[in-house]
């Protein structure tokens, strides 16, 4: 079983905060990995917020493949950061030889291009590199997007933290938004790509649970968008649907909930917007999910939201202060990083709710 979490803070927090949120929950996960996506960065990349940042784990040959391709494509590396690692013996980690985070400048020909064209190029670049790296197992490209950094590794989260020096706040790995998870997806093979959070064009998502409509979601999603690939985990279904509803269809966020866990026909019948809701349920019936689930998602504007399956079979809690909010599978995580918050204000979202923390740190609750 997974445990998932997210932090949203007015002031940048260090990656160690994310670890502190997750480690108390370790009885619920199997300590098989660590993965996080950070957004709205400070520290190492604070001066490159507009520039696409690549998160890469690879071999030496992999690094060369990426460099050649990026040169050929006209991207110029602006800043490269290779974390100093502590490779002491006895650590439970299956590390890749290199972890390289690089901020690039866009190719010149994109100077006058629209945001959409840039976004398309970033995605195409990541997909092309993923294919090339995959061919001879030379590495993994987790994200390539402005102001977004991804770290994923297999092993014991404590050891992974030791390896990357995540325990001490050195001021390097800082962000206002973090989505985090401490387990490889062990339903399927242990591969780095299978660990959530997953990322696509500004959307980050992790999920705790089991999507029993995985196959039908997957088969349909494959035909919807070139970026909907991999499917190493059923949680990717949630991300792709989020991306499809918000980015492709440009529907407001609340309809995401109506797509993945539509109201029953009986409930819909009583609603003033039943025509719209019925049409949505009809048209995207193949994106409905089933089974027990909790989703935590981070949107391009930095808001973070959570919602559950329609029978509320997986727990989640939201709590915090006006400057630091967190979402966590278990409340013990919150108690560690936010011991002084007003616990009576903790929110345990129900099966029909979306709880969202806005970029202005406001907590919103919407009923589906």
């Amino acid at each position: 079983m997974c445990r998932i979490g997210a932090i949203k803070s007015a002031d940048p927090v260090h990656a160690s905060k994310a670890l502190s949120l997750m480690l108390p929950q370790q009885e619920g996960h199997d300590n098989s990995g660590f993965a996080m996506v950070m957004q709205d960065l400070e520290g190492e990349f604070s001066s490159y917020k507009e520039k696409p940042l690549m998160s890469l784990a690879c071999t030496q040959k992999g690094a060369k493949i990426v460099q050649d391709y990026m040169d050929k494509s006209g991207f110029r590396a602006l800043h490269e950061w290779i974390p100093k690692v502590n490779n002491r013996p006895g650590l439970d980690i299956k590390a890749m030889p290199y972890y390289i985070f690089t901020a690039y400048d866009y190719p010149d020909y994109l100077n006058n291009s629209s945001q959409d064209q840039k976004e398309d190029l970033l995605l195409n670049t990541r997909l092309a590199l993923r294919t090339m790296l995959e061919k001879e197992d030379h590495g993994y490209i987790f994200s390539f997007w402005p102001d977004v950094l991804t770290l994923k590794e297999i092993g014991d989260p404590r050891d992974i933290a030791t390896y990357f020096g995540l325990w001490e706040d050195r001021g390097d790995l800082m962000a206002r938004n973090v989505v985090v998870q401490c387990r490889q997806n062990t339903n399927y093979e242990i591969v780095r790509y299978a660990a959530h959070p997953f990322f696509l064009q500004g959307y980050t998502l992790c999920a705790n649970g089991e999507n029993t409509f995985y196959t039908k979601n997957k088969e349909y999603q494959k035909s919807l968008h070139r970026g909907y690939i991999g499917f190493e985990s059923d949680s990717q279904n949630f991300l792709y649907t989020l991306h499809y509803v918000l980015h492709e269809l440009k529907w407001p966020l609340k309809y995401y909930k109506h797509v993945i866990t539509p109201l029953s026909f009986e409930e819909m019948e009583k609603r003033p917007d039943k025509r719209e809701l019925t049409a949505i349920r009809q048209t995207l019936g193949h994106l409905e999910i089933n089974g027990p689930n909790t989703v935590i998602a981070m949107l391009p504007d930095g808001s973070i939201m959570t919602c559950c399956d329609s029978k509320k079979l997986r727990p989640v809690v939201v709590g915090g202060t006006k400057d630091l909010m967190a979402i966590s599978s278990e409340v013990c995580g919150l108690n560690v990083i936010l011991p002084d918050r007003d616990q009576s204000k903790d929110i345990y979202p129900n099966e029909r709710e979306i709880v969202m923390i806005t970029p202005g740190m406001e907590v919103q609750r919407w009923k589906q």
Partner: protein
Amino acid sequence: METVKTQDVTFNDLAWKIKYTPDRCTMCGSCVAACTFNAIEARIERRSITVSTGHQPEPNQRHIAVPVIRQKNSVANACVGCGMCEKVCPNNAIQPIRNEDSRLNVVGRAGGNPLKRGGRTNLNAERVLDKIIVGRISQMTDPSLDSERHTFDVLAPFGRVLLPQELPFSVENGEIKMQGWVPPVHWIYPLIFSDMSIGALSTRAWEALSLATAYLNEKHKMPVRMCSGEGGMPVKLMESEYLKYSIIQIASGHFGWNRIVRALPKMKVDPAGILIKIGQGAKPGDGGLLPAAKVAEHIQAIRGVPKADLLSPPNHQGLYSIEESVQKMFMSMNAAFKFRVPVAIKCAASATSVSVYNNLLRDPYKICGGFFIDGIQGGTGAANEVSLDHTGHPVVSKLRDCYQSAVKQGSPGRIPLWAGSGVGMTGNAAADAFKMICLGANGVFMGKLLIQLMGCVGNEKGRCNACNTGFCPTGICTQDPRLVKRLDIDRAAQNIVEYMLAFDAEFKKLMAPVGNSSLPVGRSDALVTNDRAVADKLSITYAC
């Protein structure tokens, strides 16, 4: 030595032989009266018996004449194995026995006429669905649901579903507003009572079906829809509120349509849908057939025809092409009901089904609201045996092909897929329906099991299947007023209602363990099979 006339047909040439035990028989005559096929008769036979009546044994041989029941020696009066004689015999003295050495296929075409019968295919009764099991059970991390406690959305779409980009949506203040017209879609129970016409069925049987449909809707809130079949509907029903539970069928013969059109202005509610029948799985490429024997007065009235063999042509007649005529039919049907009623199409499964489905999916007018695929195990009231047994296509893989084709194009569910033929053949319709749905059907349609619930004794092994004769022994498939009386409408309807309640409970018993609260359309990962070829063809998991 007496000469044997070897060409004479005798009952050992027929498909069924009567096993008669004279010493149990009291000659009450019930069996002869019950046999609608005139296959048995009371006769006198000469017997030689030995009697001894004195105090000492004094055996004495005598010849006496005894009355007996005998099977008739003719193809025209061949026993069909319906078992009515056995049912009525108070002494267990008579029963039909299947004749393994039957030569009926050889002698039955005397006179140069093709063999005709009703029912279903008898040659292709093998079942793929029974090789498939629901093998992905939710445990531990994704707990099973509780079929008694949780709520389930057991509903399927009937109508054309638009792609999200095609919906007339606009976003105002964070709310989606639908600004224009969208094709009608009804969410109905995923099992439709298949198209069996008044004419093929007796009015009583048809009435029992509509009664059961109304009862399931009104009393049990199960939105089951019944398809009229080609042959019109009683005016009273068309003018009643219950019309909303009916799907009206139009087929190439257009029987009954003049009455339907005349009733249009008086309809209080819209019908649930229109189903255009292009083909039928039991006899693809062959038109409809209602033998004159069954065209009784009330059938002439409902259909608007004289007493004669009623043949629907194998094709809908169009100007240039079948596509065009179907297109026109779609248009006129949609227009007749002011675009408020979904119009679907029913085709026989065939090697070309996927192309037909693709054409419909790509149709720019987006007017087809359902694709009904009917396989070789479908039923019929009357057909040539050569069509029944030697033409057609299994439905399961065809359904799967159509679904996969739609998925590939990003259009699953745009034109809901409804599959039928052999659903419930073994009596377990819920399991059949569930598997079909996992393979990609939105819902299924079912006919033969319904008449079996009303009392039909026909089966895939040649029993009865005499629906074409007008002598249906159970009063279901005949217009003979004396035979029709055999059918108790209320009990027939009750049997169907009770079966459907059990179906619903069993269906949920399958949804719960796979952890689904809405229909698992296309959830092929829930299925496994121990047959390699089936696994490969249907892209499901092989297990052993």
